[in-house]
């Protein structure tokens, strides 16, 4: 099989994931896009391992590791997103703007802060 096929597929998949990471507003969707990017890397690893016929199977072993790390990453990432949601009442990346230089977002932050207590209460109800 032509090596270009998996390689190009991996490259395109990676770029799709990249677009998702950069363009999605919801944090959970961002994490999903990250998964896409990781899978693109996995595909590359497997394809090159198969091509090279490595005696140690390093490509596939690393793929397994990546999958594991990805699982850990999605767990932690979702925990962080949940925390942000609980504190801010939203999972929108656009509205998490504490890094802003200046006070344009100050109002939004305050609103978010005021919404925080409401979110907390409701979350408690859910929990």
């Amino acid at each position, binding site marked *: 099989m032509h090596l270009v096929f998996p390689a190009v597929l991996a490259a395109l998949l990676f770029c799709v994931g990249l677009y998702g990471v*950069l363009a999605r507003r919801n944090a959970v969707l961002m994490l999903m896009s990250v998964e896409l990017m990781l899978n693109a890397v996995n595909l590359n690893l497997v394809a090159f391992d198969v091509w090279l016929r490595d005696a140690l199977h390093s490509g596939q072993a690393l793929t397994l590791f990546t999958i594991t790390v990805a699982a850990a990453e999605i767990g932690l990432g979702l925990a962080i997103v949940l925390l942000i949601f609980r504190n801010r009442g939203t999972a929108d990346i656009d509205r998490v703007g504490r*890094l802003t230089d200046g006070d344009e977002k100050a109002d939004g932050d305050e609103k978010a802060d005021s919404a925080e207590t409401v979110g907390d209460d409701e979350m408690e109800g859910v929990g």
Partner: protein
Amino acid sequence: MTLTLAILVPLLPFLGALAGLASGRRAPGLVRPLAVLPTLASAVLAVLVLARIGTKGHLDSATRLTPTGGLPISLSVHLDGIAVLLAVLVTVVATCVQLYSTAYLREDPRYPSYAALVSLFTAAMLLVVYSGDLIVLLVGWEVMGVCSYFLVGHHWERPDARSASIKAFLVTKLGDVPFLFGIFVLATDAGTFQIDGILGAAATGRLHHATLAALLLLGGVAGKSAQFPLHTWLPDAMAGPTPVSALIHAATMVAAGVYLVARLEPVFLLSTAALVVLGIMAVITMIGSGLCALAQDDLKRVLAYSTVGQLGYMAGALAVGDRDAALFHLLTHGAFKALLFLSAGVVIHAAHTNSLTAMSRMDGLRRRVPDAYATMGIGLAALAGLPPFSGFFSKDAVLTAAEHAANGDALTGGLGPAGNVPCWLGWTVLIGGLLTALLTAAYATRLWLLAFFPVRRAAAEGVAGSGEAVAATVAPTAAAVAALASDEPAGPVEPAAMVAPLWLLAVPSVALGLVGLWPHALPAWLDGVSLTPSGVTWPIATGVALLGAGLAWLAWRRAAARVLAEAEADAAAAADPAPLLLGPLLGPSRTGFGVDTCYDRAFVRPVLGAARLVSFLDREVVETYVKGAAGTPGLIGRVVRRAQNGNTQGYLSALAAGVVVLAVVVAVAQ
């Protein structure tokens, strides 16, 4: 021993000034003793030095300062008859001024610094007088300039005092620039800054640039001694307190210029051109200032212009080669001008105004300040040159010198070739001097009449006493006697500290002239030229002076009569004889012949314009760069700040784009 005393003379006032400045705030009680006592002590010491030096004595002592390369500068003392005489004058006048100031400026909060500055001023002048080295002399010369700046600007709350002090400083500094170069020229020619060395070089003909040096020195002399082109600061300096005026006019500042020329007279005698310039300058100054003095309304400005005129006499005497006459006049003038200013201070103190017009409407001034009235009369008589007052003898010495020069045998006292003094210069100075004598007598009389004889009363006397000239001439004298006799003060009694210096100074004002008659007294300390009035000049001069006084009196009478004749005389009642005497010259005389306006046009406005231009360039051009340098980073920062929008995805996009760009660059580069 004499040297120690001589060094102490300038040192004591200097230390007094330092102590006064240091303790002025903390120990107010010490200020007055610290002001008066060092000056008094140095006066006593100056007299001692005078006695020890004797008539033909000399004392020269020099200590080399650190070697500086080039010409050596040494801390040296040069004592001869001129120096010790002048030192006595300076210290005596300074003592009187300090004593007077203790009362005159009793209420002034800045009295401590004032007294310290007066002491410093005195010390600087004494340094000039005693110094045997031109550079050390220059130090004293410049310290005097600074002190005059501070003292004239003593009332710095008033704008006229501020501008007058700046004007005095700038004008004298303007003269000091050529002065400094003149010193350099002299020192380069003679190979030393020592005055002795320079005079020796002049005697042996080693001075190759005598004319240049003398002309350059004249710049500084004109500035300090207020001669014609640079005289304008002196009348304005009246903004200072009256005792300061007395000090500046009588003993220190203005005397320095004349003293310097007298010291370097042999150098000046080498150059006809310098003598001619000095003489013309003196004559213009004399006559111009006489006219101006006649037209002024301010009592102190009249006296200021009279100083300018008397300095013109001295410069004239120096121009015709007779420094003895010049120094004689300097001494007598120092005495009677200090007297005039101090008594004017008393009068102003009592009248609460400087204006002669206002005084002429004031009844009883004569009776309120009898001491000032009498001493001012003495001073004015001396100023006008009436015999037997001191001014008569010294002025006549000047005129005699001019007459000798006009006849071709200038009285140089062996200091230089008499042939260098042209005859026509002698005639010019002589005629100018006589004309000035007329004017001086006229304005002295006018001042006297306006200040002490109110119109109504004098006119009443005139009406009652048949109005004849003889009787009227007697009237002021009679009034004076009456005022002296009736010793009951009608107004505020002036403190003794103000009155005592008046009488102290009145003695030399009257008698100092007689000292010049005796060949073993004053002439012996000088160069031995006879100071006795010659048979030709003194009758003429006295006649001219009497004529001037009489004309002024007649004009005053007519003016008074006209004032009385008009019904509403009270509004503008000023029996000023000046309009009658001066005629069309009155306007220009009152404004100083427009010299100030001329300078304003020629120098002040261009300089101000240039200053405005520079400030415009600074504010609009240079500052634009500075603001731009500050503003550009701010602007860039504001632009770049927009990138910091807190959007994580935006940051990530930029990061990824950068990575892509780097990858492309690497790929293309390979």
